[in-house]
């Protein structure tokens, strides 16, 4: 029976199939951060349970840490207590922590791959919905709640009902100025924010194959915004080249064995999916979201859509326009921005920063716009500085910050003020996501940089690079 990539990874991790219960799935890698873990560790203590395999869990602080220079005191006492709780829990249970002062600290979904923990064919979970990012390597990676974090700590397993499978086949090539982010937004715009609920997506086709691993991470990252449990891309030579030589990747003879195993992961010819979606890459454009969910996308060359005719959709769209301070029919290029955020687990890797810097080079941030670049990790920051990207950004007037989740969700001091409008490379434009009353438009790193320079959304396909 031909099997999909998902099916192969699933089969390999079944520990037990008890009658009347969902199968028990083994978890290879568990990622932990400060926000969704303290109650899980407390649960272990209350039940007098240990962490079953501390070597399979790694932790970092990312969600609520400040992005001012390291060493700046954390003024929010509750945030400080949460970070201290993670430090204490990692000490107590023997878990490896990439702490505030670590040269390898960063957003959990950035450091897992760059340290070589994330590998093809693995099962990976984290108390964070953007765990789907790791699927870029052909891993089955999904977000879980805190009760499940506790479950994984205690048992290294999760009872899991088998999800359905969805193939998203992207034919053709992405045009100039159209990035992995635009592909992700285009897909969500097409299938909707619940279009993949209950499914694991496999992304395939020429346009996906031609993406770098970093681009694939951006694509898989946003799978959850279409409601999917996970998104996956079959591993290939691009994947192996990325993983090879990383600190926690297989070494020596183990490397050869691992690659031989990974080569068997791609979907077999003739394997069936529950749902198939076809996308033509040549129809995609640089996108901008106009509403308050990631499915509300429009081409940079387009206009804010007219209100739908019928009842409940019309009310919802009206509410969105009101919240966003927009009017139907306005050309997207005429929308002015107050803030620009380049960062988040979606778009804060070296390739993203290079793309944004290429746009910013030789220009100045428009007057009245505050623009911020937040590298995904200390390693990304260091690598970018080696290339001089920080100089390009700083000379253009962007702030160059320390790594963390930052303004993607605004748990730390980086937030929008009410009615401020932001071009953001993050993943969610929900009401208040970046700060109460803040207005978020999701875009690619290139589009965010261009908006910072001109002060309004600008079609990157017409950009004069310097």
């Amino acid at each position: 029976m031909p099997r999909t990539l998902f099916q192969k990874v699933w089969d390999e991790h079944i520990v037990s199939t008890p009658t009347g219960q969902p199968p028990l799935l083994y978890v290879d890698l568990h990622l932990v951060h400060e926000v969704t873990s303290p109650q899980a560790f407390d649960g272990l203590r209350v039940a007098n349970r240990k962490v079953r395999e501390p070597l399979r869990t790694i932790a970092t602080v990312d969600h609520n840490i400040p992005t001012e220079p390291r060493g700046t005191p954390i003024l929010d006492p509750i945030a400080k207590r949460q970070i201290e709780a993670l430090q204490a829990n990692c000490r107590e249970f023997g878990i490896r922590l990439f702490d505030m002062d670590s040269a390898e600290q960063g957003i959990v979904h950035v450091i897992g791959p760059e340290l070589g923990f994330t590998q093809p064919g693995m099962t990976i979970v984290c108390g964070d919905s953007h765990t789907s990012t790791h699927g870029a390597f052909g891993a089955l990676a999904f977000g879980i709640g805190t009760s499940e974090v506790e479950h994984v700590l205690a048992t290294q397993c999760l009872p899991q009902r088998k999800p359905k499978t969805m193939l998203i086949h992207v034919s053709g090539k992405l045009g100039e100025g159209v990035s992995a982010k635009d592909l992700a937004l285009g897909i969500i715009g097409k299938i909707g924010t619940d279009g993949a609920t209950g499914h694991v997506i496999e992304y395939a086709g020429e346009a996906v194959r031609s993406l770098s691993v970093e681009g694939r991470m951006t694509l898989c990252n946003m799978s959850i915004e279409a409601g999917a449990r996970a998104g996956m891309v079959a591993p290939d030579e691009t994947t192996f080249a990325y993983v090879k030589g990383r600190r926690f990747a297989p070494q020596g003879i183990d490397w050869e064995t691992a690659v031989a195993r990974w080569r068997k992961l791609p979907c077999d010819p003739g394997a069936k999916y529950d749902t198939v979606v076809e996308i033509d890459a040549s129809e995609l454009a640089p996108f901008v979201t106009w509403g308050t969910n990631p499915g509300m996308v429009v081409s940079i060359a387009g206009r804010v859509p007219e209100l739908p005719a019928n009842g409940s959709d019309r009310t919802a769209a009206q509410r969105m326009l009101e919240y966003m301070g927009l009017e139907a029919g306005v050309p997207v290029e005429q929308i002015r921005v107050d803030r620009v955020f380049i960062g988040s687990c979606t778009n804060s890797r070296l390739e993203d920063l290079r793309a944004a810097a290429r746009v910013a080079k030789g220009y100045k941030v428009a007057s009245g716009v505050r623009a911020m670049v937040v590298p995904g990790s200390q390693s990304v920051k260091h690598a970018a500085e080696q290339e001089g990207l920080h100089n390009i950004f700083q000379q253009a007037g962007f702030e160059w910050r320390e790594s963390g989740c930052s303004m993607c969700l605004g748990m730390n001091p980086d937030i929008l003020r009410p009615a401020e409008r932001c071009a953001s490379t993050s993943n969610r434009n929900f009401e208040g996501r970046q700060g109460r009353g803040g207005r978020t438009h999701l875009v690619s790193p290139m589009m965010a940089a261009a908006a910072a320079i001109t002060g309004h959304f600008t079609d990157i396909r017409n950009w004069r690079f310097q």
Partner: protein
Amino acid sequence: MEPFRKHTGKVAPLYRANIDTDQIIPKQFLKRIERTGFGEFLFHDWGRSAEGTPDPSFVLNQSRYSGVSILVAGKNFGCGSSREHAVWALADFGFRAVIAPSFADIFANNCMKNGVLTVPLKEHEAAEIARKASEISDYQLSVDLESCTVEDSQGLAASFHIDEFTRHCLLEGLDEIGLTLQHEADITVYESTHPVPSTWKA
């Protein structure tokens, strides 16, 4: 976990699609390290002005909805972030069940772990309940997990589907970790052939 068998209670309508977990519990309240005390922040930014004063037009601030224990919402309820704090806030506020045409996966999982029942009904049934909850004062529903049915005293009778294992866990209030640990021998066997990668040690 508190078992869920049958619950009768007052219904609050919040019939919008795609209500995300950022609305249910905004990020500024995720820093607590306890599971308790989130109820007062439920739907905080919808229910309160920027200065923190309650907005009387928001449904949960209206006295006619005091003591509600069932929420009826639009499709794709609980989308977005995996934060279990959203469920802790609903439960702490007093909600035992949420009715909607559909739910986001992680949110529905999180509910189940906390004894909160997600009840998927057909769109027109959920809409009817939302309408009655807006029009009829003290409108009540009974949600029965034994029979997987929802009823009111005005003739509404709807049924819903729930995965059998989830139903069993909720009915009995089972500790899932305890259930998994009954298979510890299987886990040990699996681990003997799937060792921790050597580069992850030390």
